[in-house]
């Protein structure tokens, strides 16, 4: 492949051939003098007109082709982007032909697959109204679950003050055979996810085994680095909830 990175078209030089002129004419990048000159030539040179027409036609087809390809441009990705302050611990997808097996083995891929294929609309990392309501009102507990909606179970684990003055809560979410552990902080009346990790669900009522130590460690590390004090006791937490934070 010829490298044309140094083949700079010199607007004042002689290297601007007709194809360059026509291309720049199409793009409105010719100066006035050259535009007038080229327009004059186009009137009298049918071959040049045909060349211009061919270029314009191929441009039109290219635009149409790419418009077709971008119709379904990432509604699911938009949901991922909108998820506030999510920490992505590791790449959630690899090139399909290279790592399909690895994706299947990855717990984080639950999210990745749902985002990629659009087969599931659940994005447990997204802060939605139900989750925010649970964070706002539910007391922390050591066991048991609160039904969040038709798909998810919720458990608040603990509440702690952050060094910046916000209140934060560690929580768990369960869905099918996966669950997530995260921390959300209350920022001017709005709960915002700060970090979310994934774990493999074993027996929902009894025990959990971290799928990747890194995920859980990140949540723990976040709390360790963020918390200004120890977690609130049950009575303190209940008073805080009752006061509206």
């Amino acid at each position, binding site marked *: *492949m*010829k490298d*044309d*990175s*140094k*083949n*700079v*078209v*010199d607007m004042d030089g002689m290297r601007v051939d007709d*194809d*360059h002129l*026509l*291309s*720049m004419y*199409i*793009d409105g*990048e010719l100066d006035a003098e050259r535009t007038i000159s080229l327009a004059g030539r186009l009137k009298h040179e049918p071959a040049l007109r045909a*060349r211009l027409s*061919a*270029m314009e*036609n*191929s*441009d039109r*087809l*290219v*635009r*149409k*082709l*790419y*418009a*077709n*390809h*971008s119709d379904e*441009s*990432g509604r699911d*990705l*938009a949901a*991922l*982007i*909108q998820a*506030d*302050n*999510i*920490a*992505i611990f590791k*790449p*959630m*997808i*690899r*090139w*399909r*032909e290279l790592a399909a097996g690895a994706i299947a083995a990855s717990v984080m891929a639950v999210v*990745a697959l749902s*985002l*990629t294929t659009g087969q599931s609309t659940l994005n447990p990392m997204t802060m939605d109204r139900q989750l925010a309501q649970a964070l706002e009102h539910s007391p922390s507990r050591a066991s048991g679950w609160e039904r969040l909606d038709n798909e998810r179970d919720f458990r608040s684990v603990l509440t702690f003050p952050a060094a910046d003055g916000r209140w934060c809560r560690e929580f768990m979410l369960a869905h099918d055979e996966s669950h997530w552990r995260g921390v959300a902080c209350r920022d001017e009346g709005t709960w915002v996810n700060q970090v979310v990790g994934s774990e493999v669900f074993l027996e929902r009522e009894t025990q959990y085994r971290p799928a990747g130590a890194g995920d859980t460690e990140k949540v723990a590390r976040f709390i360790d680095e963020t918390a200004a004090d120890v977690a609130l006791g049950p009575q303190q937490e209940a008073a805080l909830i009752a006061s509206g934070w």
Partner: protein
Amino acid sequence: MSSLTAQQRQDLIDELPRLKRFCLSLTSDPSDADDLLQVTVERLLEKGMPADAHVAKWSHRVCRNLWIDEIRSRDVRNRYAQVEGAIEGAGTIAGNSDESVQLDRVSEAMERLPPEQRAALIQVAVEGCSYAEAAAILEVPIGTIMSRVARARKALAEDLEWKAEREA
């Protein structure tokens, strides 16, 4: 570098259609373009960007660098085998109309363009970028954009003309 601000997130969402087309212009394969877009978004969410960064330029730069990394990691023979397969799969516009045939032709012609010419043409002809804007996104001199766009148009026009004559 912190995570994306709310405004950067919104700008990135607004940029997705254009970023998707950019992915397609780089990869020339719809599946690879989907993957590249996904990886690009994940990288941006993971690494964030400077508060004063131009989201479109930054995201395009990340996307392009990721694709370069991917190309380097692939076996060359394997890559070209996939490109051949992609050419067959790229003509996804159904129907037998003249327009459909033309789109198939232009799709195949785009496949044959050198990637850097294809990317420049998409930025200018599809996205409506000025040469200066395309140069900033692709990180090449403005004159290089002029040259690549012109070469791409010339190749496309000749390719389409040749195919039309052959099939006539």
